């Protein structure tokens, strides 16, 4: 896979995670947090399939 595409996806995932953080801090809507979690899981899984390395680290360390 082309590196620029992977980098672009990583940036998007990072932005999406920041959005997820914002939702957790401000909304207090479990349903939104649940759906954001699945977006995150799917994006992270997509990156894993593109050779990214942070998927498992994220799964183990993500604690906010």
């Amino acid at each position, binding site marked *: 896979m082309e590196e620029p595409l992977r980098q672009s996806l990583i940036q998007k995932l990072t932005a999406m995670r920041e959005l997820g953080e914002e939702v957790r801090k401000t909304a207090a809507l479990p349903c*939104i947090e649940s759906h954001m979690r699945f977006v995150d899981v799917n994006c992270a899984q997509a990156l894993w399939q593109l050779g990214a390395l942070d998927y498992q680290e994220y799964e183990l360390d993500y604690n906010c």
Partner: protein
Amino acid sequence: MQLYSQRSMESPYWNEYLETMPREKLDALHLRRIQRLIKYAYEHIPMYRDLYDKANVKPEDIKSLDDFIEKIPAIDKPDVVRYQGQQPPFGDSIVKDCEDYCSFYFQTSGTTGTPLKEIGYYRDMVTNGWVFNWWAHGIRPRDVIFLAFPFGTFMAFWSAYHSATALGAQIISSGGATTEQRVKQILEMKPTVLLSTPTYALRIAEVAREMGVDASATSIRIVSSAGEPGYVLPTIRESVERAWGARAIDLYGLSDLWGCDAWHCPVHLDRLHLTETVAHGMVLDEDGRPVPDGGQGEWVLTNFVNLMPLIKYRTHDVVEWHKEPCDCGRTWIWLRHGVLGRTDQMVTIKGTNVYPTAIQSIIGGSEGLSENLEIHIHAEEGGSAVTVRVEADPAVAGGRYEELQTKLANDLRYRIGVAMKVEVLPPRSLPRYEMKAKRVFDHRKDN
């Protein structure tokens, strides 16, 4: 590690934004969704184009909810089954050329006739009401949900499975296990929530007792049920809560409508809230006119799904609906005592309309009788007649059956106002069910 933010964990709402939205705003949202849905259905689902052309109505004619009620024709299960039958399996009842998006197939249980075939996209599955119900009643990701369900083509608990995933709870699916094996699994795995039909929750407790296990001493703290008239009726709720030493919470769903459902209010146990994120509900009288707030009539639903939406679908369930905000803080429509009966199972005896659920409720509160019963409806000159067959409680001596029979017949006559034939039977005389129990046998069309 915690899956949700602390504020979410403490929230009594799965989605406070929509669950507490003022009625005016909620109705405006429904109108926007209905307008989009009707346009989408008219353009992509041949059944609706056919129905609406025959009714001489176009999507752009729907400018208000009143237009929706007055101009859009209601549909019934036989209508959809007929469209499906013209070109099986789904015919013109689903979105054209949607094969790539078909994720799940189910069919209705066939309790009231030919099963309806249902096809849905993944999104249709993850947006139902189970999770709203569970969150409202304090179920959180640390709970362990035990699914006592055979996982066939009946949708009911499949949607619960996906809701448990959405919530983040641990799931134990006891697929093909026997009841005895399920009791052993509950003892071994210590789930905190049991999911089954009300009848089967009682059956598991009965088998546990035969195995020398006290169900009320197990790890189960909540019994969450659907599929039959359930815990919104006090007598059924109390028998399950007694058997399991747990809180019993109810969910009324229609698999026809992709699990579009109403569920147990955490404050008023005689109320069910419609999940207004997935459906629009209204109550109509026999002539299709809207019944005012607080009145009783037929529950007519529209579900917001992708492949096979059902628009103004007649459920034949009779409900009493209320639109005023509930003390739990929700603005979602609530139904008092859930489903009061079915329009197609109403029995008129000497001018009095009787629903089998009313009979079931009285039997549930009768000393010495079990919850295993059958209600047989027969045609009789001048109306209908009802025979009630009910098993005695195992602790009751055979010599008391006649006394219980007379007492129940008197109770039914006094509380419902008409005479019914009653037979009290020894325990285990009637069949047991793992899914929906068949309680009502309508013989009026047999001849």
